[in-house]
């Protein structure tokens, strides 16, 4: 009962903040609304007892992606208020139609009693951070130590790529 109430409150907050994020005229305010909606999503993950996903939501999305968005917004001038593009009525109707179709499809899928879905739900136990740690560090058959080390190589490649692409030579930087 208590958790149901919490769930509906969180979902309402999430939907409201997401709507604000796409509809506020000031881009900066929209980004702040997006932070709020990410927090609500993290709270939903915590309700599902998925600590690690909640932690990555807070650290990566709120700590990382949002910083990116703020920098992109601050790189532009005027926060998008002057040249705001109004969506025409026909396009708006088309968007609403596609969203309605998606909603109907989702509702149909969820409402049908599916055996596989039920089995999967029963089998899905909450994964604690310790489980993830043991599996990541284990060197036996069930371990994920090789993928864990490969992640660091992947991150290294991303870092080198970012440095190479984003940074030009000093001479060219002076010109632009």
């Amino acid at each position, binding site marked *: 009962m208590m958790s149901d109430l919490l769930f509906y409150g969180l979902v309402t907050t999430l939907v409201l903040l997401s709507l604000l994020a796409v509809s506020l005229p000031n881009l900066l305010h929209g980004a702040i609304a997006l932070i709020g909606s990410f927090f609500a999503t993290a709270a939903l993950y915590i309700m599902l007892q998925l600590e690690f996903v909640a932690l990555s939501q807070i650290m990566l999305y709120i700590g990382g992606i949002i910083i990116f968005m703020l920098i992109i917004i601050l790189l532009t001038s005027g926060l998008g208020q002057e040249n705001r593009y109004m969506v025409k009525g026909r396009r708006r109707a088309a968007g609403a139609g596609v969203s309605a179709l998606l909603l109907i499809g989702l509702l149909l899928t969820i409402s049908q009693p599916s055996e596989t879905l039920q089995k999967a739900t029963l089998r899905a136990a909450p994964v604690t951070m310790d489980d993830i740690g043991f599996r990541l*560090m284990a060197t036996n058959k069930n371990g994920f130590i090789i993928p864990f*080390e490969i992640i660091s190589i992947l991150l*290294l490649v991303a*870092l080198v790529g970012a440095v190479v692409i984003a940074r030009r030579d000093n001479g060219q930087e002076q010109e632009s």
Partner: protein
Amino acid sequence: MDSYIMIGFSVFLGAIFVGGAILTSKLLAFYTPAGQRKVQPYECSEEPIGDARIRFKVAFYIFALLFLLFDIESLLLFPCMKIFRAVVTDQAGGIGTSVLFAELFVFIFILFFGFIYAWRKGVLVWE
């Protein structure tokens, strides 16, 4: 679940505390009609020049990129640190202390190499 409720409660309490402080100061403070000088963000008889919102240097972007990568690294180190106690007290089922140390050393060393690369390329130099 109980501890989460406690966290939620403390967040709620914090919000009330901050909101209450702002509201009380709104209610209690003297209100004088604000002139141009009153609403200046920096009220020290210094005339502010230009807009408060300036455009960022693109250099910040690479910094954010590097930050995001090392953010992912620290996120992946969290579960490994969580099992540290179990490993040290030998309850981790096959994962020894030296194994854990070697695995984490390799992981961090590879990324440290990237850090050195970025340093040598002069990304971290502030111009």
